[in-house]
């Protein structure tokens, strides 16, 4: 059984089709990268996996560990082990990172039938994971994402991922706007979590991230479909030649 199995996915927003028959299979232990031109539907795919109901699914299916993901509410998907590192993390004024993280952790645990985490264990985990992504401990007392720099927001997403230890993590352009050091830190976070029981879907524009997070498979998403699937070499080729050559072959 694969971890994520997307079949013939069609989705639209406000009646406008965006995904047009997308297929994707991701097994546990694997890292897949998705690349593609702007506006091709990468964030849409990520949002749909996470359960954003701004998008209407008109056809197709998404299975997660053999069960339909589409039947679950977003918070239930999170409890099932789906995590999305947002391309544009949202600010929540007045809610401290700590309170937010504790609530998230315990709501997920409650759905899994577990007791709330002991405060001491929680704090220990916070410190560990902050260190992993080199996130300033002071940020924990600040409101969620408020006044965070672009890089801090992205590292904060990886911090949350590390805290929640999901089975499937979708990273939506977590590398965009990062300098090389921040990029290395983000990759370090992902690599530390990587194991044989989880899987990552890494959406990126740049091949350089894939130097740090080495993918097993690279897909190209264009016009709402996966139009090419290959190995890491495909990413190099895209970096060097752009997308036009694939789009051309596609048409031909």
């Amino acid at each position: 059984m694969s971890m994520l199995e997307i079949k013939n996915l069609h989705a639209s927003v406000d009646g406008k089709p965006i995904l047009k028959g997308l297929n994707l299979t991701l097994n546990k232990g694997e890292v897949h990268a998705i690349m593609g031109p702007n506006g091709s539907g990468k964030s849409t795919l990520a949002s749909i996996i996470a359960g954003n109901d701004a998008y209407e699914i008109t056809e197709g299916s998404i299975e997660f560990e053999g069960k339909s993901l589409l039947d679950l509410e977003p918070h239930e998907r999170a409890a099932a082990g789906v995590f999305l590192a947002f391309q544009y993390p949202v600010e929540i004024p007045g809610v401290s990172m700590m309170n937010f993280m504790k609530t998230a952790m315990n709501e997920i645990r409650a759905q899994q039938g577990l007791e709330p985490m002991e405060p001491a264990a929680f704090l220990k985990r916070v410190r560990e994971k902050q260190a992993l992504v080199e996130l300033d401990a002071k940020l924990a007392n600040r409101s969620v994402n408020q006044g965070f720099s672009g890089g801090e927001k992205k590292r904060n997403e990886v911090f949350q991922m590390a805290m929640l230890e999901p089975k499937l993590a979708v990273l939506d352009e977590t590398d965009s706007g990062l300098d090389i050091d921040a990029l290395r830190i983000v990759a370090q976070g992902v690599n530390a979590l990587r194991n044989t029981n989880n899987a990552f879907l890494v959406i990126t524009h740049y091949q350089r991230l894939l130097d740090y997070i080495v993918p097993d498979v690279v897909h190209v998403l264009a016009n709402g479909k996966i139009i090419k699937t290959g190995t890491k070499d495909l990413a190099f080729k895209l970096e060097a030649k752009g997308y036009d050559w694939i789009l051309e072959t596609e048409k031909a």
Partner: protein
Amino acid sequence: MAEEQDKLLHEITNREYEHGWSVDLEAETLEPGLTEDTVRFISAKKNEPSWLLEWRLKAFRHWQQMTEPHWGLMHYPPIDYQALSYYSAPKKKPELASLDEVDPELLKTFDRLGISLQEQKMLAGVAVDAVIDSVSVKTTFKEKLAEKGVIFCSLSEAVQEHPDLVKAYLGTVVPIKDNFFAALNSAVFSDGSFVYIPKGVRCPMELSTYFRINAMNTGQFERTLIVADDDSYVSYLEGCTAPMRDENQLHAAVVELVALNRAHIKYSTVQNWYPGDKNGKGGIYNFVTKRGNCLGENSLISWTQVETGSSITWKYPSVLLKGDGSKGEFFSVAVTANAQQADTGTKMVHLGRNTSSTIISKGISAGQSNNSYRGLVKIAPSATGARNFSQCDSLLLGSHCGAHTFPSIEVDNATGKVEHEATTSKIAEDQIFYLNQRGIPTEKAVALIVNGYCREVLDQLPMEFAVEARKLLEISLEGSVG
């Protein structure tokens, strides 16, 4: 998402009021009606000195000449003042040497409110003067307070034991003719709390009163007087819940605060009275006059309120800034859901030199409710160097509710500086989705966002009550997503 929101809105609208139950306390209740005889009866019942009876009668006669104000943004059927009963006292008035002597029904009441006296007794640091239907039945921690010379008792008791203090200050901040409801209160006030903090004393604990309206058709007319002498400090918390009723219950309280030189009074309210059913039927009408007088130089009066209950709230905790360098603060969260109506705000009246005031108001409306901020900042000709900062934010949950702000600014001294900021917003869908994605269900997500939105105000509450207020916010907004 719209459909889901409708469902959630429907759920909250149909949610039963948590504190909706009533306890039989064998109340001794006066027949409905209000005449001079009623006033005399109350005064006699309390064995009051003649000056106080005269004071009440003067108020009553004046009240008879007045008409109910209707300038608030509220709609409700006319109140028949003759149909209300103006006195109700628990028959068993326990001599509270120990808790064993307390009416078990009463203890049950407190248990249900989550503030059992046993607990309170153990929870060092909190003294509770519990007012059940007009008569104060329990005061704890009295001795500890007495050591410091702090007086904390029911107003009736203070009238007997500290008549000079009461006489010197009663009605000095809210005069009997101040407004319709204050006049009514002055005529028929039942009981309330009295606090006196002597010179230089920092009150060693939070003083807390849980009010509770209990008998059928009983108007509730609390009257509280707090006097903080030079260089003293006191933090006072008022919390309220009321059982479910079919008829609207009128509540017209008066609170007077007096801060002398360099005194600091912090007055916090968590109000959770029965808001009525989803159409607003049966809820509490809350017409309150709260005012503080910063009489002394460099004194400070700070109002913090979290208002989630009542079907109608008409309330403007205000500060008269008389002493030079005195400060007034108003921190408010007002939540309305279903058919609730709140018209609340503050008045900051700057009279002294270099006085300053801060107003932070957060209005949250859901359902078909209406939530208005009404404020006045007045800088008198004498108030050289006065400053005010006001921030009034409104948050709308759903599209059938209303938020309104009526800020009024009168500056009669050219050195006065007044800043006013106002915002109206909705909870963004992407905020909810972000929290959902981290495993937090929508209701909880809304509560978290709203709590964050109110943080500046909640942070003002004493720690133990902030927790309660957060819970209340969560309960009163369950399902109100927009």
